């Protein structure tokens, strides 16, 4: 008779799940991997296919002749079988740059503002801190689109429509409350004694923060930076609503324009998609442990 899990535990045997469970789990894991990577794989494969490959019905899974035509068209504006894309390719390159620029600026600003606020709310006592904290968090319930629609007039008055600065400011506003919440929770879990030791060792509050607490927060800062980066890069509704000039259009907006323009040119669209997903994919993979830790830790 098979011994129960507890009996095995009691006798010091390894407690691996029974084979049936393990097989099920393996199937689930494979399914999850396929599900997560599938569309990306499809995109990659499509981007190296030719138009003819794509137009066969039923579609061929792998192209007959893999080709980098789509990428050439997109990056270099070369005239290929996919048609002439000279102006669009420079626009694409421009928008990638623009996205990265806006993302970096918005991320630096968001993290800086939220880091100090999150620390202050969690560690420092000052009058009105609780009320202000909940007020800031309350703005999280306001859906982004409501805020942006409301902001539209104000932004127009400030001549910030279609500008990069306008975008960065709005990203900052929508992302700061979440980042503050993440930093607040993160700081609460850090031991407070090293900071106290620094105060006794001769630091002012600010110095103790710079020399002891900030280094303590390193992994949290990395995590929030990654999350904010991904959020900023992926913004679509805000730049769509607030408008952007040709030189400041983020790639998320541009790519939907392409979808409208090159409706069935799947290889080109897929190539655009693949290039566009590279920055967030790299960030997500490099910092995935930090991101996971921060996301699951702050809402559990």
């Amino acid at each position, binding site marked *: 008779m098979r011994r129960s899990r507890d009996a095995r535990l009691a006798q010091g045997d390894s407690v691996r799940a029974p084979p049936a469970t393990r097989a099920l789990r393996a199937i689930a894991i494979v399914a999850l991997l396929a599900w997560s990577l599938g569309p990306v794989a499809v995109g990659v494969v499509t981007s190296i296919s030719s138009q003819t490959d794509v137009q066969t019905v039923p579609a061929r899974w792998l192209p007959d002749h893999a080709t980098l035509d789509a990428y050439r068209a997109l990056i270099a504006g070369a005239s290929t079988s996919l048609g002439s894309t000279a102006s669009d390719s420079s626009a694409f390159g421009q928008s990638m740059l623009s996205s990265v620029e806006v993302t970096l600026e918005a991320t630096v600003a968001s993290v800086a503002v939220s880091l100090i*606020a999150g620390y202050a709310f969690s560690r420092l006592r000052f009058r009105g801190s609780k009320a202000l904290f909940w007020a800031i968090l309350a703005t999280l319930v306001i859906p982004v689109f409501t805020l942006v629609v409301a902001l539209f007039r104000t932004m127009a008055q400030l001549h910030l429509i279609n500008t990069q600065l306008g975008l960065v400011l709005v990203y900052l506003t929508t992302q700061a409350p979440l980042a503050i919440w993440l930093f607040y929770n993160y700081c609460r879990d850090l031991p407070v004694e090293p900071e106290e030791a620094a*105060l006794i060792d001769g630091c002012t509050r600010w110095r103790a923060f710079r020399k002891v607490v900030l280094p303590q927060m390193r992994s949290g800062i990395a995590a929030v930076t990654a999350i904010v980066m991904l959020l900023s890069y992926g913004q679509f509704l805000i730049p769509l609503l607030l408008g952007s000039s040709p030189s400041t259009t983020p790639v998320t907006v541009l790519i939907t324009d392409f979808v409208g323009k090159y409706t069935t040119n799947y290889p080109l669209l897929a190539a655009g998609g693949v290039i566009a997903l590279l920055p967030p994919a790299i960030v997500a993979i490099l910092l995935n442990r930090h991101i996971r830790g921060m996301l699951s830790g702050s809402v559990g």
Partner: protein
Amino acid sequence: MARPALKERARARLGFGPLGPAAGASRPTLAREEAWLGWWLVIPAAALILALVIYPMVVGFNTSLHAEAPTLGAPSKFVGFRNYSDVIKDPATHSAVVHTVFYVAIALALEIIAGLGAAVALHRPFRGRGLVLAVLILPWALPSVVSGVLWRRILASDNGLLNSVLLQLHLIHTPQVWLASGWAIPLITLVHVWGVLPLIVLILIAGLQGIPDEVYSASAVDGANQARQFWHITLPLLRPALAVAITIGLVDAITIFDEIYVLNGTGLNTASVVVQIYNTVFVDADFAHGIAFAFLVAAATALCAVVATLASRRATV
């Protein structure tokens, strides 16, 4: 060690002033320092929120109570809540709300079932777990419009992969235009869920890992098999995490926009409430109604979130 002499020298070197009661008078107390620093550190965030959230919201609400100005610069008439009632009575709103309800229902169902399954499969350690989880968060990390572009190939009408697979399996005989059919909403929801699921799974994994092993051992001794353990132990103890996951999934689904826009544009057959707001503001150029609509949806979302949180906290097994 000659203590007094050393102490004097050290004191001088350490920068202390002359001894005596007066020395302490002008220096700030710790509490005052704390308050001072605290305020300075939160002022940037507070100013930002005040200027770019509170103020526009108030102004926006005011705008929603006025009719749209006929020409730019002309004074607008105060009409109270007429914009709101216009929006509520508009049939386009109704269909958008109906669509949104479908989006939410399908999304939540998929997220809970798939999310629980994935979380159960992934929360215990196994070889390669880190890698699997890293791949898992990829869909969440990508911008939703990019996801939409990737999924287009799959969902495309004539030569999309979905059609091809179904044709080859002989489940359909001609390629279907999915995004114009009754399947549009479920399929768009699928794309949306593809992007949100990683977050849900992470939250549920955290919840599962919060359940101590001893509880399972105790129940096993008490005679529970795996299925009963799941129903009577895992699910109830998972309730707080489930509550958070459901609330997030709910709010995310109500505000769905990007995927719809990139897969089917602003077409009315798949419009969600946010798509409809977009239509009102940018296609119809009716700012006043648009902003009233936006406030309505915001209120409804907040209400749903509160109800969802309370309901999942209150329900007992």
